[in-house]
């Protein structure tokens, strides 16, 4: 098998040139294009040298999953099919990754929950699958609307978890995600999350890399565990199935294996910093008031900051890009001057605020809100009101129907 490096500069069957990823993303010309988030996922996949994509319909990721089918029909993807449920699809993804393929899939909300048993298995088996999560409400009652609650469940699976704010993030991070996931010292699956509808179904200007360039292919022989293709000796990795036995060796093996997964997440830090230019982005963190957010809540926070500035209230911003690895040091440093830290979220439990409270000293500074859920939007005005009332100023806006 040719290694990924030896094919750089050669062409695939579609005439795309395998290109060094850094050159492709940072040196090649970019073309501004006006696309929906779903179309952006397709365009990223066109350039991702993906071997296998497995699809299943669930709103709001169905369009993206179907568009990648078109890419398969055009010859850009090695194989593609519709599975029978998210549980099956995530297992099919695992099978393909065990067999040495670069694998992609998409899911959302109840689909994420149905597939959940697979995710710790993916991490434990060190399968660098990329899964797009277009977050939506989790039943019941039935909802298809945007809500980020499912991310809370993904945080302890052993997967890398990133939360994109915009379609541009999405485009770049799909390609960068494989670079981080497939590093031999990481080799973990990535849940690349966005807020459904807000990102998938709205149009935005996204700067695309050239369509005739694509990522170097995945090299399964850089994996820290053997690829299941009978191309390397089928050595008995265990002389005894010790993980199934009730003895100290079996517990110690299982424990060290789990610790290794979390150590691999830690090791992904340096690669994520390299590719994402840091795990967080910051603006004006010398301000006494800070908004810390991830996903679409960052955009709403940014607009709230503009409104507050008009009223003479200065407020800084921290955009959290990776949730796993968790940017612990970065958040401590960025929040050290803040007296008030607001964490706007699109979910009922406030999982991001809880993570931040567990990270920083004097966590009474954290105001876990405002929060919306079940598909409600978060107008920047409610962030402004929350901030102003908390610091003892009068509300700026009357919010109809929101009990204000």
């Amino acid at each position, binding site marked *: 098998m040719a290694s990924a490096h030896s094919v750089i500069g050669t062409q695939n069957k579609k005439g795309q040139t395998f290109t060094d990823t850094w050159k492709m993303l940072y040196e090649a010309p970019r073309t501004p294009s006006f696309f929906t988030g779903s179309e952006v996922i397709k365009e990223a996949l066109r350039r991702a040298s993906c071997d296998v994509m497995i699809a299943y319909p669930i709103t709001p990721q169905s369009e993206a999953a179907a568009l990648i089918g078109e890419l398969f029909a055009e010859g850009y993807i090695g194989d593609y099919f519709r599975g029978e449920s998210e549980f099956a699809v995530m297992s099919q993804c695992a*099978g393909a990754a065990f067999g040495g393929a670069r694998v992609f899939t998409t899911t959302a909300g109840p689909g994420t929950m149905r597939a959940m048993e697979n995710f710790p298995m993916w991490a434990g088996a060190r399968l660098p699958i990329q899964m797009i999560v277009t977050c939506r409400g989790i039943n019941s009652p039935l909802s298809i609307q945007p809500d980020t609650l499912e991310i809370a469940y993904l945080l302890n699976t052993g997967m890398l978890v990133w939360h994109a704010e915009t379609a541009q993030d999405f485009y770049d991070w799909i390609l960068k995600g494989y670079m981080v996931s497939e590093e031999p010292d990481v080799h973990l699956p990535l849940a690349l999350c966005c807020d459904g509808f807000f990102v998938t179904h709205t149009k935005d200007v996204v700067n695309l890399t050239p369509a005739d360039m694509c990522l170097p292919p995945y090299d399964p022989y850089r994996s820290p565990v053997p690829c299941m*293709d009978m191309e390397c000796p089928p050595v008995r990795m265990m002389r005894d199935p010790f993980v199934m036995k009730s003895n100290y060796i079996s517990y110690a093996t299982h424990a060290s294996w789990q610790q290794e997964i979390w150590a691999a997440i830690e090791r992904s830090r340096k690669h994520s910093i390299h590719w994402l230019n840091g795990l967080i982005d910051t603006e004006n963190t010398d301000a006494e008031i800070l908004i810390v957010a991830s996903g679409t809540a960052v955009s709403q926070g940014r607009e709230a900051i503009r409104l507050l500035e008009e009223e003479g209230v200065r407020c800084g911003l921290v955009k959290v890009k990776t949730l796993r690895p968790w940017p612990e040091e970065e958040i401590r440093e960025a929040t050290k001057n803040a007296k008030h830290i607001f964490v706007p979220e699109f979910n009922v439990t406030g999982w991001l605020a809880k993570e931040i409270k567990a990270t920083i000293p004097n966590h009474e500074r954290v105001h876990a809100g405002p929060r919306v859920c079940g598909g409600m939007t978060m107008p920047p005005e409610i962030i402004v009101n929350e901030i102003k009332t908390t610091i003892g100023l009068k509300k700026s806006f009357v919010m109809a129907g929101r009990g204000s």
Partner: protein
Amino acid sequence: MSKERIKISEDLYDIMPSDYQDLVKSATYGKEDRGWKDIGTSKELIEQHSLCAGCPESMAFRYILASLPNPEDTVMVGSTGCTSLVFPMVAVHNIHSLFGNQNAIASGLKRALSVRFPGRIKDVVVLAGDGATVDIGLDMTLQAWFRQEKFTTICFDNELYANTGGQESGLMQKGFVAKMAPVGKLFDKVRLPEIARESGCHYVVNCTVSKPSLVEKVIRNAVHVAREIGPTYLQLYTPCILEIGKNSMEGLQEMRDSEKPNERFAYKEYVSEPAKQLLAELAAKDKERKASAKQLAGQASA
């Protein structure tokens, strides 16, 4: 995989485990007519196992691993249960991931291997218990067949959940009293061989593992048909002697009793028309190969 790949560097030879040295010296990777008769004269692809003494499943494992037509390019997929205690001692790449998802894993795996190795043979064989195949994993078992995924599904049917201690399963006989069936199972043994036929399997066999020559034949047929045509299914009776109250020595007799005419494991097969044609072609080639080998041997001795 070429047999070259398992060779040991001379400098490291003496520190390699002896069972690995044996694999290099006398395993039957790449041997064209490998089969159950190699057992006892060559290194088997299964090392010691931790199944109960006398467990028919261990016999089934040995026969199957001796009979795979192409172990050097075969990847096996298992599931949770007694079989998952054995796979770590098997010298063929194998995957355990979750309970019941084996046919979904195999679907993704087979497709990945087809994308990565176009024009090369890479066989995929699923081997799981009846709980995994028929109960928790039935959806994925059937859907893989509907999609005509090109791999073999083997079900070790012991008619109950053995590894968790003998609970009722879908393949249990009606009326059998077991854990979770305190007044006896209330519905019939699921007719999976018939369902397999209707779901698109091209080669289906229901039998016991009492005769190694029969196991060899059906394994070879199932793998060849799956490789060339589409899904195949083998349901093999491997009784759990522990849970049905038998002694270590009684497994073989239990299988013989259950395969008599009109018993539930009387030999039953279904072969689709394209599969019949393929198997006839393979049998003709085999005959030709054996005849020419005989001729060569005759010339050599003359």
